[in-house]
């Protein structure tokens, strides 16, 4: 009967047959739904509500060596600040143990004559000790206390005989694209890259490694289907699953968490599709090389998931890393995708950012598929 159908039609029919079978299988397996629907919602929810760089308040131990009117007004300034919760004591040793135990973020000591010292222009009239085991928080506590001290001093100096020199140069910062500097606005777009990496690389690696592990891949190869047709047929459903999950994530981010989206959806779809191809290519390569689900899972976590988290500017700054690690980051697809996502969500269609990202992703995708083609052929010979 095949005699009356042209070869290209037969090809399409074969591919479509595999697509249909794989789609049903993916649909029935709860783990695909978990990865494509539940995981994105959990991640977006966490980045939307919980996980944030924006501090709520710091707990600080305040030691007043001798109460004076000035120490009273400084204590009031500190306790009125929304950034600080204070505990007071006369002896600093009370708080030193708490700082070691990690119960407080810092200690502020007001010596008996701190106000006079401040006016004599001596440096460090008050002592501030912070918990350096968390440098980020330590920095913030120091910065906020510095600002509070400057404001307090300015207010106190009003009405004094010898006024303090007013601040000569004032810095007026403006954070573009994210004026409130909300960490949700840049963490949520970045997390979409993590979600698609898991669907593309991890889920695909597992699904195809299972075929190799069970020997069903060899069985399929004995049929008239050719290797490229088989792989396309296997990848199409996971590509669609990934695009669906991307749409769900973007909708949740914009509608539920109020993250702005200033670019165009057409461009987002294009870049996501190319990124998914790169991630699917990586998953395919991993499964072809390992041919074992356990090892495929471990390798894709180590080579796709962790790098997407670390080497993508998602949380950690690539520019600040040693050059060898910066070099590695160029091979990580998420690096390009996170950059485009942050630009499309917060800034808009900026071609000077998106075009290089798109080319980088296309190059990586081509590389993965070429390597897969080479290894598959060699493995079968």
């Amino acid at each position, binding site marked *: 009967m095949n005699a009356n159908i042209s070869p290209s039609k037969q090809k399409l029919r074969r591919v479509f047959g595999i697509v249909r079978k794989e789609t049903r299988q993916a649909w029935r397996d709860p*783990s695909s739904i*978990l*990865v494509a629907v539940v*995981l994105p919602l*959990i991640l977006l929810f966490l*980045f939307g*509500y*919980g*996980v944030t*760089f*924006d*501090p709520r*308040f*710091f707990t600080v131990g305040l030691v007043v060596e001798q109460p004076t009117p000035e120490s009273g007004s400084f204590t009031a300034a500190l306790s009125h600040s929304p950034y600080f919760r204070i505990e007071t004591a006369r002896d600093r040793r009370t708080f030193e143990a708490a700082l*070691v*135990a*990690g119960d407080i973020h810092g200690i502020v000591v007001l010596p008996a004559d701190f106000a006079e010292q401040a006016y004599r222009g001596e440096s460090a*009239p008050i002592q*501030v*000790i*912070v*918990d350096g*085991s*968390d*440098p*980020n928080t*330590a920095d*913030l506590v*120091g910065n906020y206390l510095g600002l509070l*001290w*400057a404001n307090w001093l300015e207010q106190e100096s009003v009405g004094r005989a*010898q006024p303090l*020199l*007013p*601040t*000569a*140069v*004032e*810095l007026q*910062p403006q*954070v*573009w*694209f*994210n004026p409130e*500097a909300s*960490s949700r606005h840049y963490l949520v777009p970045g997390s979409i890259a993590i979600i698609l990496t898991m669907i593309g690389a991890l889920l695909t690696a*597992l*699904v195809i490694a299972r075929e190799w592990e069970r020997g069903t891949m060899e069985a399929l190869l004995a049929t008239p289907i050719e290797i490229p047709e088989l792989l396309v047929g296997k990848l199409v459903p996971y590509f669609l699953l990934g695009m669906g999950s991307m749409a769900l994530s973007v909708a949740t981010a914009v509608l539920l968490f109020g993250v702005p989206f200033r670019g165009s959806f057409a461009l987002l779809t294009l870049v996501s599709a190319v990124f998914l191809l790169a991630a699917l290519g990586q998953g395919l390569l991993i499964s072809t090389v390992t041919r074992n*689900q356990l090892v495929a*899972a*471990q390798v894709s*976590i180590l080579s796709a998931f*962790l790098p997407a988290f*670390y080497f993508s500017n998602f*949380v950690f*700054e690539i*520019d*600040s890393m040693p050059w060898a*690690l910066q070099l590695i980051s160029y091979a990580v697809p998420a690096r390009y995708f996170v950059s485009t996502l942050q630009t499309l969500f917060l800034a808009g269609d900026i071609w*000077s950012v998106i075009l290089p990202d798109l080319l980088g992703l296309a190059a990586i995708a081509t590389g993965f598929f070429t390597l897969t083609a080479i290894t598959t052929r060699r493995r079968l010979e």
Partner: protein
Amino acid sequence: MWRRILALITKELLASVRDRQTRWVVLFSPPFLLLIYAFAITQEVTNVSMAVLNQDLGREARELVSRFEGAETFERIHYLTGVAEIAPAIESQDVIMVLHLGPDFSRRIAAGERAEVQLLLDGRRTNAAQILLGYATRIVARFNETLSKGGARPPTRVITRAWFNPNAEPLWSAVPALFAVLTAMVGFMVSALAVARERELGTFEQLLVSPLQPVEILVGKTVPALLIALTSASAMLALGWIVLDVPLRGSLIGLFAGMAVYLAAIIGIGLFISSLASTQQQAVIGLLLYLVPAVLLSGYATPVENMPNWLQWLSTTNPITHFIAICKGVFLRAVPADVILRHIWPMALIATTTLSAGAWLFRRRTT
């Protein structure tokens, strides 16, 4: 009974150690990852590019710009010639920050007026922008101090001393937290597929019809996983301490006690997820579905105190939160034993609950 358990433990250990791929992935890759990622987690910002638009020809303006040029943070400084160049420089991510001094900067300082300087930051990298803003604020504050005039003195500054890590060594804060997270990954890798793999291959039924009781199977699966994970974790610990030279100031015994209970809790969760799953694929996915939120809620990337109260409460049921607290405490702050104990007992509770649930599921899921 003990002989049966011992036989199972021996078999499991041999199976893992003899498999080349497992040996490589579980024993050798975690220390390697510690070495790589320890350098990736920097909470300071360096090597970034900034731009300066200086529209003032005065000496003070040049002086302020040279303060920025002298800062090590900025690898490249671009000089702009007009306001129109600011937006393209930031949008294209050529620079992360632009310092803009208006034409009347020096004149205002000479007149004793307040001179305003604009600092424009790229909000797509908000965290880096915030850190850079802190650096810039400090540079400007120091610049202000040099501008004394007449009899008036510039205001004094607060000088902060950081205990435990006075030079803000990035590795010192990165290694303890990364060690805790990688140890969790090892614990999951050795336990997660333990049951699911056998179930998929059909060998788990054979175990269940053998004279072994579910509790014995549980012990036989937990102990080898614990031994392998402890070996790998100890290698990472030695690497962090000796090679990366992170100080270990607290009690090593306390750290190992915490590590054993932590791994028991992690393996308990791993076995529980593994027994829930009917295929390896489900086990891996289920595990990641637990691991990713657990790491995010552990205070690893962002502080636990920043979360809303109910999420903070939830994170007390997360073993990773407790072990990160122990690691940071023991490595850098030399915490006393009672603080370590405060974090050990919740992990012990989690271990007991998940391990018993796992044993119960062995039977349930087969029928």
